[in-house]
């Protein structure tokens, strides 16, 4: 019985690993396709042919790209992610603290937005067709349709510039108390929640409505169960599969997709790092970032799959 689940889970993990390899190679290929290499870009306007040649030699960028990729790839297994071309620092050191920041932001956003989104989705489903339901559905679309940078900038103007309640920038490295944490994260989190909630709300609503039409919910109704009991105890547990899936997909945005928020609030996360890496053609850095995003993405969807499997007693 549980052996079965284990089997499914393992299968998922193996598949995830395969995907990972595909991605890192695809990203590598993509980067190599880009014109201009790290040397030209580092030298910028000073990139005279001989200067370029010289620096290239100095940085051992003459050996074929694929070879460097393989070296990097081999390195991973020894926990060595290579040295950044752009500033000769170990990639691990560059990413480490920023990854932590990103995860913090993502985590807090999750804690904040997921419950709200689910509640809205579920309540909307509960009173399906009601005005509440309609407003939620329309608003959820309205909210995503406002460009992210617009939301962020407006938030800064209102809360930081005029009301002076919150700082305009998020200094992740200055948090010593819970209060400060709230102040620092409030705006980025709100902005991000705006972006990711819609999909969760819609999917949750759909999934719950789906299960509300099943015989066992009717049965519960005929036992005299209240509306809330119908939804929470009977519909919801059976809607978990699709819901976690939607949540996972929305959350997968929180690592690589938050570039705008990172820029506007000057929040040092990995998204900006990745963009920099791409602009400087910093292969080891790009590779590692891409790996990272992919891992998180796969982690999320795989967890979603697994939760779906586990939450379904038929597979126990």
């Amino acid at each position, binding site marked *: 019985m549980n052996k079965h689940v284990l089997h499914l889970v393992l299968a998922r993990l193996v598949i995830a690993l395969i995907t990972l390899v595909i991605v890192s190679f695809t990203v590598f290929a993509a980067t190599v396709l880009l014109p201009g290499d790290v040397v030209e870009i580092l030298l910028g306007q000073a990139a005279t042919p001989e200067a370029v040649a010289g620096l290239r030699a100095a940085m051992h960028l003459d050996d074929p790209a694929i070879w460097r990729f393989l070296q990097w790839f081999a390195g991973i297994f020894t926990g060595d992610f290579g040295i950044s071309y752009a500033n000769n620092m170990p990639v691990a050191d560059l990413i480490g603290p920023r990854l932590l920041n990103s995860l913090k932001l993502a985590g807090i956003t999750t804690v904040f937005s997921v419950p709200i989104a689910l509640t809205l989705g579920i309540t909307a489903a509960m009173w399906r067709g009601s005005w509440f339901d309609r407003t939620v559905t329309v608003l959820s679309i309205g909210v995503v349709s406002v460009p992210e940078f617009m939301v962020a900038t407006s938030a800064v103007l209102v809360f930081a510039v005029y009301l002076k309640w919150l700082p305009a920038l998020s200094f992740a490295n200055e948090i010593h108390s819970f209060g400060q944490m709230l102040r620092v994260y409030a705006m980025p989190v709100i902005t991000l929640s705006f972006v990711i909630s819609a999909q969760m709300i819609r999917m949750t609503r759909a999934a719950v409505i789906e299960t509300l*039409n099943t015989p*066992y919910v009717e*049965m519960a109704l*005929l*036992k*005299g169960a209240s509306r809330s009991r119908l939804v929470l105890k009977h519909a919801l*547990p*059976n809607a978990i599969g699709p819901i976690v899936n939607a949540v996972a997909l929305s959350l997968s945005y929180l690592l690589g997709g938050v570039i705008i928020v990172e820029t506007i609030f000057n929040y040092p996360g990995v998204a900006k790092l990745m963009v920099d890496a791409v602009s400087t053609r910093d292969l080891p850095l790009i590779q590692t970032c891409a790996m990272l995003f992919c891992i998180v993405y796969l982690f999320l969807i795989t967890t979603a799959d697994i939760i779906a499997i586990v939450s379904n*007693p038929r597979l126990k």
Partner: protein
Amino acid sequence: MANLVEIRDLKVEATSDAGRVIEIIRGVSFDIAEGEIVALIGESGSGKTTIALTLMGYARNGCRISGGSVSLDGRDMVRLSERERAAIRGTEVSYVPQSAAAAFNPAQTIMDQVVEITRIHDLMPRADAEQRAVSLFKALNLPNPQSIGSRYPHQVSGGQLQRLSAAMALIADPKLVIFDEPTTALDVTTQIEVLRAFKSVMKKGGMSGVYVSHDLAVVAQIADRIIVLKGGEIQEVGATEQILTAPQHDYTRELLSAFTPKQHARPQAPTAAARKPPLLDVLDISAGYGPIQADGLPLMRALKSVSFRLEEGRNLGVIGESGCGKSTLARVIAGILPQVKGDVIFDGRQLARSAAHRQKEELRKLQMVFQFADTALNPSKSIGDILSRPLSFYHGMGRRQQESRVCELLDMVRLPRAVRHRRASELSGGQKQRVNLARALAAEPKLILCDEITSALDTVVAAAILDLLKELQRELGLSYMFISHDLSTVQAICDEVIVMYNGEKVEEMATGLEEGPGHPYSRLLFSSVPKLDTRWLDSLELDPELVSAFARR
């Protein structure tokens, strides 16, 4: 006896997708006395379930109670507020669903759901509730009553679920219990157990009951009174005995006659047939699901080296209970599930294992009709399109040819030509099954595999379908392989029967010899078919060993 329930001039109306409002219950009135069990008999669409549900003040999505009164123990369920109704549901009137499998929440343990009523209305501490549940399990003689509650619905058999759902309804010993076709989904051998259990519990508790069913024989065993319904109106009300023996209303008679179909007239001497090469020759087939094991056989074996042959123009019945592999057999022959071992020789040619590798001609000559008419029809296509596809596919017909041929086919299966513009969802179960049949006929096959095609239908409709099959056979010289769990249907149409149990062919015989079957399982099976006799169930003596050996409780 005072009346527990008094229904007066009840009206229910439904709104169709197109927005039309139709009255589906047209002024029904009847009473139920204390401790009385009343059966609502009728075909699908007769409104029997709808009426039963109004007793809980509930009307399904798209329906609403538009008139009349349903007074339960003096309170009118129609007038009460939703909150008040909720308070009564489960405590005073409770419901045993048609398909327990669907009515149990897959995500919760059985015990949670059985005691839920006591939690909702909080009637007693959980411990007591569980006590009570266990005693009910005993009373409904469920196996290992102590532990069964901790399982999940998918971990117990259909028969057990059905009884558990009864326990679920009885937990708060209500005054009235509504049974909605509780045994329709069960195998005959199981059905007996369930019926017995219900009957005894009800009698002990002295509860009133409403028993909704389309199966007179079943009702005969349990009900005191029978109400015959048709098109949302009461046709006849009477004591069970009287309804069975001296029916007043024509419709009631129709039902009764449909129940005992005429035996199939044996065709020309088998000896003559014997000389012909067999139309279908199945040699030592093994098949199943799951990964292939070391021994070259799949993990879950549904068929274990089954062989038989079927001569042209003759009909073979395959009978057995759910999970005996009879449907798998059909799927193997149709090439839907490739066998791992054995051969299928059809019309003198050996067939490839998978339909994908068979030739069009082979596929054309061998058609299959599925059990569930509605899932077998694409809901988003018109009947016309569905029927013309095989015409263009097999016979490469042009548009106009198709048009006329479709009409012919519809005539053949006794459906109005106008149907071809409708979608499946707009047809009744019987009509859908006819469409399925027509689709098979469109291919002009030699053999049709009928997988339980009548078991989802009302008796009358089923009988009509059987007659249709016979006529078609006469006109087109078809052969049928007829799969069913119901002996009488098989008797009605087949020349030979093979009895299957647990993936194996246990017996092969000519129909009509059921009185003296060799194999004990066959005996059990045949004796379990309910008879139109109120005393049948009580008088029935089953060899307990047989039961314990074969019946999947």
